[in-house]
């Protein structure tokens, strides 16, 4: 790990540029009323980190309870609330907005060569809606919690639960609109605000991934919204849409809920995949293999993602024919994801690979997402799903793709673009250590869960048979290591804001418009609108250029 592509300016003379988006205006109001996509990205970054640690603390409580087979740390009712809140916070308040609202908001206008997103005020509104949704969720949590599972399954959520279902349902409704507005902004920006010469196929794959995810956000989230409205109405006034005693069908709730929630997992992972494309090409000094295939597979994942939702419902009472069709379609949807993994692997082949922190996280992503994705095939196959569903196998599957996949991609992206966003480098050695600790902790936490799930341990139970304890203890031990791995970045990233090395415009000698402007960027991003003539990921051109040409637009 001695070779590095890191290319910092002379530290004895370098300074962070005096005029940048952080220093442009001062005062709290300039932040709270900003239209600047970069400031909004930072506001989001702080907010989602806050919610991540609350969700993480809840995860810690879950793992503590599961150290012993009895439900001794907390009563079952309380345990239900803990895993529900963990799920709601992690899915809706962390994973869905993580990369799009932070890195996407920050980078997409710069990557397409624009001065801001298409609708800056809507962008700010999106953040406020996120805060309202988050606040309502916290309120629901503090005043008694919710115990229905993050999936709000009826008739538990509509009739039998005595907890804050209405508040949480409305909170998610509001947070959903935050997501919709972000996606809407991205689609319009990518279509309409590209600089001269920035054709679709010169766009970084980060943009393609966000475009695909945004389509899902815009088309899928409203269905969740109406579903939650119906649950709230049923719970408050007693309309009988999902109530069997009044002729309603609880399965209808699940159809409507999963119509969004399956595309939601692609909303969560696609932006992460965009990050991985950028990181792998930069740290292998090579154009992404099969750019077109990766771009189109992103859109294909988005489109196919709408056709498979009932694979979450195989055992719920849908018809056998529906099971057959949805199972087949689920097999198809795995293909575009696999295409991306193959393309990233071929990008690495004969590349000049170095192991900086973003690349370590990217490697972690590739391995763990592949395992998670492959286990998804067992779940998509209806026959095996009958055995594995509602067990810890499912829990392990989605944590592998979401935590081993998405969260690692998020950390990869944050480290990769940290110098651009802040003008400072993070400390490399400790961050590499944190990445390794995270990887080890993750595997210890979640791999045993595959085993224990296959052996039959059900999910969402505080108590379990004695024979599963050893694996559960392993898992909890891993979780404590994982926690350390997540705490370290908070510490050293904050440290780097004051003491980190000055990054300069392009510390990674990467391609892309964002690396040709100052770090941190100006409020207006570019002093002149760039005219794009360069192909995307053109490392040969880059390596042949002088420093100035690499780091300045025009």
């Amino acid at each position: 790990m001695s070779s590095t592509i890191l290319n910092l300016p002379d530290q004895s003379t370098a300074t962070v540029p005096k005029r940048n988006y952080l220093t442009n205006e001062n005062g709290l109001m300039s932040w709270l009323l900003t239209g600047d996509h970069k400031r909004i990205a930072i506001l989001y970054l702080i907010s989602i980190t806050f919610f991540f640690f609350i969700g993480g603390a809840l995860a810690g409580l879950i793992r503590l309870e599961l150290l012993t087979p009895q439900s001794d740390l907390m009563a079952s009712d309380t345990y239900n609330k803990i895993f529900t809140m963990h799920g709601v916070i992690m899915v809706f308040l962390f994973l869905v907005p993580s990369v799009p609202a932070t890195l996407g908001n920050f980078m997409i206008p710069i990557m397409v060569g624009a001065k801001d997103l298409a609708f800056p005020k809507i962008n700010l509104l999106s953040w406020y809606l996120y805060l309202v949704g988050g606040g309502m969720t916290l309120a629901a949590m503090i005043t008694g919690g919710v115990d229905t599972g993050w999936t709000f399954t009826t008739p538990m959520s509509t009739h039998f639960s005595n907890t804050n279902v209405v508040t949480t349902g409305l909170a998610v409704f509001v947070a959903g609109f935050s997501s919709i507005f972000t996606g809407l902004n991205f689609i319009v920006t990518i279509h309409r605000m590209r600089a001269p010469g920035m054709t679709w196929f010169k766009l970084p794959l980060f943009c393609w991934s966000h475009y695909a995810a945004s389509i899902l956000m815009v088309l899928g989230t409203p269905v969740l919204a109406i579903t939650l409205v119906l649950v709230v109405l049923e719970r408050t006034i007693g309309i009988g849409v999902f109530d069997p005693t009044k002729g309603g069908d609880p399965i209808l709730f699940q159809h409507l809920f999963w119509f969004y929630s399956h595309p939601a997992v692609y909303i969560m992972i696609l932006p992460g995949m965009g990050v991985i494309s950028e990181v792998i090409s930069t740290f292998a000094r090579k154009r992404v293999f099969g750019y077109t295939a990766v771009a189109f597979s992103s859109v294909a994942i988005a489109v196919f993602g709408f056709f498979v939702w009932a694979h979450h419902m195989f055992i719920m009472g849908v018809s056998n024919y529906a099971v057959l069709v949805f199972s087949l379609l689920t097999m198809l949807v795995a293909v575009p994801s696999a295409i991306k993994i193959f393309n990233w692997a071929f990008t690495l082949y004969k590349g000049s690979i170095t192991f900086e922190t973003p690349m370590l996280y990217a490697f972690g992503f590739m391995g763990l997402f592949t395992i998670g994705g492959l286990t998804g095939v067992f779940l998509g196959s209806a026959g095996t799903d009958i055995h594995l569903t509602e067990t810890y196998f499912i829990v392990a599957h989605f944590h592998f793709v979401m935590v081993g996949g998405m969260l690692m991609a998020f950390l990869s992206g944050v480290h990769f673009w940290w110098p651009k966003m802040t003008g400072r480098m993070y400390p490399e050695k400790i961050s590499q250590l944190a990445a390794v600790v995270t990887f080890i902790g993750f595997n210890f936490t979640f791999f045993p869960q595959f085993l224990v799930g296959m052996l039959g341990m059900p999910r969402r139970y505080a108590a379990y048979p004695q024979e599963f304890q050893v694996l559960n203890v392993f898992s909890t031990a891993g979780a404590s290591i994982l926690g350390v791995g997540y705490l370290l970045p908070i510490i050293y990233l904050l440290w780097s804001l004051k003491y980190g090395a000055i990054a300069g415009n392009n510390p990674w000698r990467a391609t892309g418009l964002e690396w040709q402007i100052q770090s941190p960027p100006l409020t207006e991003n570019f002093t002149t609108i760039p005219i794009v003539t360069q192909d995307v990921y053109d490392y040969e051109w880059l390596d042949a250029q002088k420093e100035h040409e690499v780091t300045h637009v025009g």
Partner: protein
Amino acid sequence: MADLQTEHHEHEPEQHAEDHIVSPAVYAVILGALLIGTAITIAASYLEMGPWNPVVAIAIACAKATLVVLFFMHIKYSSKLMKLTVGAGVFTFLILVGMSLSDYFSRAWGQW
């Protein structure tokens, strides 16, 4: 600079799509068609057509909606992108309705 970007945009046909101002005469014709469609749909509901009643009702409603989208909402005179956008929305709606209904309809078919 800015003008270069404008030059670039002038070459894109999409940018000139919405120059067309639709005349009131067109709007009046469409209004007439919509009112006639409403009258037909009410009349048709009084006719006994068996399983075709809902089909006719939805078909007329789709026709009316299409007229509104094309003319009142100017899609006929808009860029391909706008047309594609509307199509994407309708498509996704049909997937939601169609695939959900396919479960319900096939439940009665029994085991295999």
